């Protein structure tokens, strides 16, 4: 099993190794221990990766903030408000899990065009502002909280939104954290939709930037730079993952069981 683990590490190790190698040493067949940071410097100068970083942060952060708000409200409605048509809408919400926005790229592109939001950051984020997956996850957590808490708080004169904010949200912190981890890594890695929607440098996330960079170095000779660029894109989330691997892994586990 350790061998399988090592086997799994090889691709990444190879890329890390290449990224730090001088160009001719990496592509030749002789072994040596030379290393250099030139590749990273070249990459940073040739493509606006700083800008890409900023955009990606804005996009992932923006999506997450709005999601947290929208899904808190909806999850509470599904968990604790008995309103007419609840079961029907619930099924309607399932549809988004089965058919995620990515599959509808072509039609969503047209919706965005009609809204006049092509090539904007808002346009990249908008389809993901609601997440059925998150709603179901959170609804489950809300349902597990004892109803007596809510009743007690209401006797004390707390409003419904007040108790949502003071009781439900703080008590469901772990679930919020799980969702945040999953959502953040999903949007950090998202590619096709931003590729379709964006045209200008300042709206492009890292993934699209990386793809364009890799395409621009068509000749095989620039492999060290492509490796360096790949590492630049992978690094933040990867380092985060290594430091908080326990939380990351349990977040993904958690979100699966309840799904």
């Amino acid at each position: 099993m350790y061998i399988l683990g090592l086997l799994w590490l090889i691709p990444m190790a190879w890329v890390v190794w290449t990224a730090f190698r001088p160009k001719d040493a990496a592509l030749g067949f002789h072994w040596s221990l030379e290393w250099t940071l030139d590749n990273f410097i070249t990459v940073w100068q040739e493509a606006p990766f700083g800008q890409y970083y900023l955009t990606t942060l804005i996009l992932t952060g923006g999506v997450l903030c709005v999601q947290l708000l929208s899904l808190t409200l909806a999850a509470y409605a599904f968990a604790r408000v008995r309103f007419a048509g609840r079961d029907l809408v619930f099924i309607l919400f399932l549809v988004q899990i089965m058919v995620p926005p990515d599959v509808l790229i072509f039609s969503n592109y047209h919706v965005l065009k009609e809204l006049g939001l092509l090539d904007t950051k808002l346009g990249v984020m908008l389809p993901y502002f609601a997440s059925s997956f998150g709603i179901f996850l959170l609804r489950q957590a809300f349902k597990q909280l004892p109803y007596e808490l809510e009743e007690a708080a209401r006797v004390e004169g707390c409003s419904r939104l007040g108790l949502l904010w003071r009781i439900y949200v703080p008590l469901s912190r772990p679930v919020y954290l799980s969702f945040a981890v999953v959502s953040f890594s999903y949007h950090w890695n998202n590619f096709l939709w931003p590729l379709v929607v964006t045209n200008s440098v300042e709206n492009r996330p890292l993934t699209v930037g990386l793809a364009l960079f890799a395409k621009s170095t068509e000749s095989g000779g620039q492999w060290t730079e492509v490796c360096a660029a790949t590492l630049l894109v992978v690094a933040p989330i990867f380092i985060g993952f290594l430091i908080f691997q326990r939380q990351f892994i349990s977040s993904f586990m958690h979100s699966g069981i309840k799904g």
Partner: protein
Amino acid sequence: MNTVWSERLKRNSLGWGLLLPSLLILGLFTYYPIFKTTWLSLFRMDLSTPVPVFNGLGNYAALLEDPVFLKVFINNIWFGLGTVPTSMALAFVMALFADKAIRGKGFIRVAYFYPNMIPMIAVANIWLFLYTPKFGLLAHVASWFSEQEVSLLGQPGTVMGALIVMIIWKEAGYFMLFYLAALQQIPKDLYESASVDGVGMWKVLWRITIPLTMPTSLFVAIVAITNAFKLVDHLWIMTKGGPDNASSLLLYYIYETAFSYNDQGMGAAMTVVLVILLLIVSSLQFFGWDRKIHYE
């Protein structure tokens, strides 16, 4: 009587009010697009027809005769057959390891899971580099054995296999997590009583572990199958669907038809096919099937 009604009204407006933000977004980017695509799929709309012409089911009929579509569809089925069972089986074995490992548990999990944290685009770059002739790792390895140059991605016969291996590398660790969770939920006393009775390891695996992780297998299977229709980012970097469409998949072909060839009617028709496919696959989970396995 009046207070009952006002109470009910209050409850209903609260419920719908809370849902409103999510409903608005879902409406705009899920329901409306689905209806609109279905409607558009009935029209001829491409570069040579400036004004859309109603075409009935013509686009669908044309799809059945489009050799590229058929090829891509069959590719997608092969892609699914290649990735789903293998990555599931591997994930199960990985989970058994990662659950039992006494030393280096953390290392094992990280090693198996990390590909999932990497963007598909970066994965594509990494593997393109591994596969690339002359400079790649595989080329290095192959050069020890033979003089001939291997170009796995450049040949229609091998390109799909090469991509399948890559996807298994990326996905198996993710599915492992679900199995890990499932393994931890199996009551320990089952295993204890089995070992007291002197039941062998294989039998325990066959009689306890596998049946009790069945619901998870189903869940993972659904996720894996739907993924097989959604994973396309890598094609953009690695092969552009080539050579000779040998590696193209449904969603990528939709992307090309809609955005490169600007054939909107056909793009819409294919989207409808894909949506129906996904709906069928995932409703298997939600209706019926799931319950049967749970309580067998």
